[in-house]
């Protein structure tokens, strides 16, 4: 048991959204905390407004139909009580950011989690890239694990896998599992799709697997763009080197939330997904998780 006095309950995180019901972010119903900020810049990103932190340029203020956005002392301020959630501010933002973030302290999030504790199997921190606010995550999970009422909740992170080995070694004692996206196989393809190479991602997957904290590896299938199909032999061989209890989830590229170049790319249809999935499962010798919805 972690001693309560060793936890910094005042540590704060910048949160872009919180969901109290999610079936797709780990085992059971998850309370999902989305943190603002990401170090990848994926062409296919479904939440591009979570990539950068607000630079207070103020371009969004005039678009707000209910005056929920104002500029105070050169900072964009968001009044949640006036907001109608039309997201016009996000549409106009030139910086892939979002004026509607909230700064939460660990204490404030504990209150929220407490209110929902009967309904959830655990907490998942997602993003943006969750691990960019590593210190905050560690304090929050420490606090959850040391609370008598919350200690049964599982603590997960959903990550792009870019965290360093040292970073993971700090986080590992406080998480029950991690879900990592593997967006392409070859370094060059990964670099083109995400803005970063895949080396760190593979390293993270290996490290988590070694410590039995790897819950799920997610493959984003983008027909004709990603190399997961043409590299299926190598991908399957690698996935087979991971513990058998690790879930392999296939995500089908869809247009929801996507901006820019990615919108011109074809969505992944159910038939295309089945083609990829059958190639992969044939080599894996076990089932993978498939999407339940195609748009």
């Amino acid at each position, binding site marked *: 048991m972690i001693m309560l006095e060793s936890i910094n309950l005042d540590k704060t995180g910048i949160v872009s959204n919180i*969901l*109290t*019901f*999610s*079936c*797709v972010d780990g*085992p*059971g*119903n*998850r309370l999902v905390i989305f943190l603002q900020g990401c170090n990848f810049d994926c062409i296919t990103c479904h939440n591009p407004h979570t990539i950068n932190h607000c630079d207070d340029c103020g371009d969004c203020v005039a678009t707000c139909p209910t005056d929920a956005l104002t500029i105070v002392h050169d900072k964009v301020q968001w009044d949640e009580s006036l907001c109608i959630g039309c997201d016009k501010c996000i549409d106009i933002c030139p910086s892939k950011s979002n004026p509607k973030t909230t700064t939460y302290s660990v204490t404030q999030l504990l209150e929220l989690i407490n*209110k*929902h504790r*009967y*309904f*959830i*199997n655990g907490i998942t921190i997602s993003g943006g890239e969750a691990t960019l606010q590593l210190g905050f995550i560690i304090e929050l999970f420490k606090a959850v694990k040391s609370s008598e009422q919350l200690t049964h909740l599982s603590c997960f992170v959903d990550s792009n896998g870019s965290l360093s080995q040292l970073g993971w070694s700090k986080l590992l004692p406080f998480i029950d599992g991690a879900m990592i996206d593997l967006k392409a196989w070859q370094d060059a393809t990964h670099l083109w799709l995400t803005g970063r190479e895949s080396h760190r991602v593979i390293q993270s997957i290996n490290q988590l697997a070694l410590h039995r904290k790897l819950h799920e590896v997610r493959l984003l299938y983008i027909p004709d763009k990603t190399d997961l199909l043409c590299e299926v032999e190598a991908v399957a061989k690698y996935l087979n080197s991971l513990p058998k209890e690790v879930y392999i989830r296939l995500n089908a590229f869809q247009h929801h939330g996507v901006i820019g170049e990615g919108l011109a790319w074809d969505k992944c249809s159910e038939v295309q997904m089945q083609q990829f999935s059958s190639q992969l499962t044939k080599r894996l010798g076990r089932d993978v*998780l*498939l999407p*339940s*919805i195609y748009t």
Partner: protein
Amino acid sequence: MTQARLYSIITDSRLSAKQKSHYLALEAEASLPYLDIDGKAQQAIDAGILCDMFEGHAPFKPRYVLPDYTKFLSQGSEYLELDPATNFDEALNLLTILYHHVPSVTSIPVYLGQLDTVLMPYVGDLSEQQIYQKIKLFWIMLDRTLPDAFMHVNIGPTDNIICRTILQVDAELKQIAPNLTFMYDEKVTPDDLLRQATDNICVCSKPHIANYPVHAAAFDHSGFGIVSCYNSLPLAGGSNTLVRMNLKELAKKAQNQTDFIESVLPKYCAIMFDLIDTRSSFLHEKSNFFEGFLTTEGLIDESRFAPMFGIYGMSEAVNLLMEEKGSKSQYGHDDVSNKLSYAISKKLADIVATTKVKYGYQGKALLHAQGGISLDKNVTPGVRIPYGTEPDPVTYVQATLPHHQYYTSGISDILTIDETVKTNPLAMFNLAKGALLSGYREFTANVASNDLVRVTGYMVKLSDITKFDEQGSRTNTTFLGAEAAKNTDILKRQPRVAALETMPSYTDE
């Protein structure tokens, strides 16, 4: 009634001969003059404030009947010339026979018994496989001979072979009928049994889960059952009538919130009690229903029948009353309007608990959040948050939770869960258990993509709704579903659920 209307029923290509007979009988009853009610009640009915649920002009059978099936199996029936059951086959045979003698407002029984409790004494040394085979055939028989999804089986809260087998068979067959309620008791029900029930919801949107201790505390030791669309009623009794109040229309009569709660609501409750007394008096005093063998052989007891005091349109009522104050606050989405709704529910509960009725359970009516009927337009069932505007399921449960303590005879409401839950059924378990541990009286959920869709309390196959206009349906409730889909926002629900809870009168639209 016109001859043309009868003619259109008789010649309707979508109805079976049996369904036609049912609607013709309703028309015949409707040709009698309405019961002698006072002017105020008539005005309230005409204004759409009160509604008698099309139960008929001269009620000759109770709305819902819950016979004591355990007693029936142990004593047989003199009237039906049946010996007591001595084994499992005989028990199923006796039940099958009695179901055809249990009336209801739909003329198909709405309650088939707490079947695990009823059948466990007859299991003997049957193997699991033998029980499975017998239950499966019994289940198919029920769906094909009594095709109405108002018809309800209860199981749980204890873990037993019948309960488990029924859950297994129900998930395999995915039939519309019978509907199923699983009783949950935190102290008695093991987690893996609740998990089997919530896994079933992901597969076929059944069972409905009732919070056993909460319901049990509302009734005496003789027990209770959940029937039709989640009406909780005394066992060996039932409901003599259901009259419902449209809170939306009533809110239009009020000057402000205080006027609504302190003056308008009590005034119209009094009018509604008069109507309830008139309707139940005819049933109990004139119809001779309680002279029949169900009563004389002790399977029902006249004193255990209660009127249900139904309400609907809470959402619109609250929004109108907030608007009157110049507030844009919306029911289900913020504390201010939610608190007003709780105050309205509390007032209703106080009135119902302190008003004596002529024929009631311990002298009282039972408050019910009514799930709507297919003819409702622009008004939301019970206390539900309107279709298409629901928050996420956890927020939904927390927002509506305070209402649940007040509605003794049930609160018809449905959560719509998107289909991603199918690959993660543990999430359904978490949600259901969270709701029940928080004090939710009942938990009902639809999974959006399911072919079987629950329409507050009864099941309609989605594919059947689209087919009905062309071909007609084998099941009575699909007719309701088709009508509901046209008139209500059934297909707009987020992602989609429908809500109704009654037989309609005939409509040729």
